[in-house]
């Protein structure tokens, strides 16, 4: 069964970070339309700082824990608790494993999802990052259950994440800053749903490249 080495986690998380840093302006711009415009700057600051501190050969659990720690204890905002809990709960599930296989990756995703839910209590349809995360995790689990291999399940997750992200365009925000806008929040992407999609896609692409 395909899997990747946990010690590839350092470079994998750094790839995710690089994608966030590259999309700094884009994320702030999206947040600016119905939020306060800080999403890109904060995400890039946190992910960039974490990348500087993660050793290349760090096990995935450590890399995720460092990222979580920077977000929670240095960035704050909404993303500190939300992504902070997501990555720390993800880290817990892969800690001590030498290789990450398809079920292991699935458990990690599920734990991340439950972590976010525990802090933010948002659900699909609220126009938050949950609109990306929930269908993505469900698609991954569904594909795996239907017999897909690791790579195919990751592909299914990516597709669902992108669809989930795009679904936020038509939604009216029911949670967070934009929820006070009512109808005016319709018609634009949600910033967190967008960054969450970037994270999941980068994770999937990085994992696929490392499969062996």
């Amino acid at each position, binding site marked *: 069964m395909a899997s990747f080495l946990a010690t590839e986690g350092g470079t994998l998380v750094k790839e995710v970070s690089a994608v966030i840093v590259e999309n700094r302006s884009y994320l702030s711009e999206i947040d600016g339309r119905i939020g306060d415009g800080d999403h890109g700057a904060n995400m890039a600051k946190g992910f960039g700082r974490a990348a500087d501190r993660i050793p290349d050969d760090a096990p995935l659990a450590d890399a995720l824990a460092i990222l979580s720690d920077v977000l929670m204890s240095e960035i704050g905002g909404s993303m500190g608790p939300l992504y902070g809990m997501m990555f720390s709960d993800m880290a817990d599930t892969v800690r001590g494993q030498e290789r990450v296989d398809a079920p292991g990756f699935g458990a990690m995703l599920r734990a991340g999802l439950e972590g976010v839910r525990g*802090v933010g209590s948002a659900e699909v349809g609220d126009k938050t990052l949950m609109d990306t995360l929930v269908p993505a995790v469900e698609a991954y689990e569904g594909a795996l259950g239907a017999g897909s291999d690791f790579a195919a399940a990751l592909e299914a997750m990516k597709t669902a994440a992108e669809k989930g992200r795009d679904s936020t365009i038509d939604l009216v925000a029911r949670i*967070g800053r934009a929820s006070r806008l009512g109808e005016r929040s319709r018609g634009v992407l949600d910033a967190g749903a967008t960054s969450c999609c970037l994270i999941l896609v980068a994770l999937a692409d990085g994992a696929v490249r490392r499969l062996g």
Partner: protein
Amino acid sequence: MQRFLNNPDDIVDETVRGFVKAHHNLVRLDPNNPRVVVSASAPSQGRVGIVTGGGSGHEPAFIGYTGRNMVDAVAVGEIFSSPTAKSFLDAIKAANGGAGVAVLYGNYAGDNMNVKMAAKMAAKEGIEVLTVVANDDVSSAPTAEREKRRGVAGEILMWKIGGAKAATGAALSEVQAAAQKAIDACRSVGVGLAPCTLPAVGHPNFEIGPGKMEIGIGHHGEPGVEVSDLKPADQIADDMLEIVLADHDLSAGAEVAVLVSGLGATPVNELYVLYDRIETRLAKRDIKVHRALVGNYFTSLEMMGATLTIMALDDELRTLLDTEVACPGFGG
């Protein structure tokens, strides 16, 4: 972007450092956390500690309200972003004089989550924490969903009351009750005339067309209830007053505190133009202004615009409002 900036990533640290240097007679930095500003008079043994915190870019809020009989410790976030749970926790510890800590903060997703986490951690360390969440911004949700509303400039009055109540030696639950009563007595509305630019972004984070104004705007530029043509100042003052009074239960003979705050770039004299009209209209309804605050009390970087907060007073609130304070935001 015509601004005084070094690396935008450093601006909050530089701000806090400069602030603490300039006001060392009133405040100091938490030795363990450069994102926590502590009153020179904190902690007061046996007194309830008052904590707040929020994103930067609203100066003098939040740090400027640290001081004697006001806020004991402030957690400082990135520009427009909630402080970390760790900073809230450190602020709670710094403010703790053994009688518990009241965290009085604004209703934003990040702050809600971070304060909740900090309060849990504080409980583990044996510090009793109660919270009050400011939700004075009328335009951010209908009356029926008041708990969804944002906290804006009314927070200053909530801190003032909470700090004054703590200064009386009241118990934690009493301080919480007074602060809750204060914010329940506040209604606010914001009007935006021009957007602000986050240093790390470099261009305005929303738009208000020339000749337009945004009614009900949030402190971070969150769009409001309506975009309309820019009206004469008196008309805007009337509209703002109408919005807050419609949501308020004030009868003739009531006494209020009025806070007109600039959002950063509006000339101070124009705030007085608004106030002139507001007081006149209140007087017409036989509502008496006990205390007026007019100036840049709670800003949004260099946004153009202003907020109006009306706080209904009873005897307790009046007395607490009049308690003497010393903090940089009220002129040190």
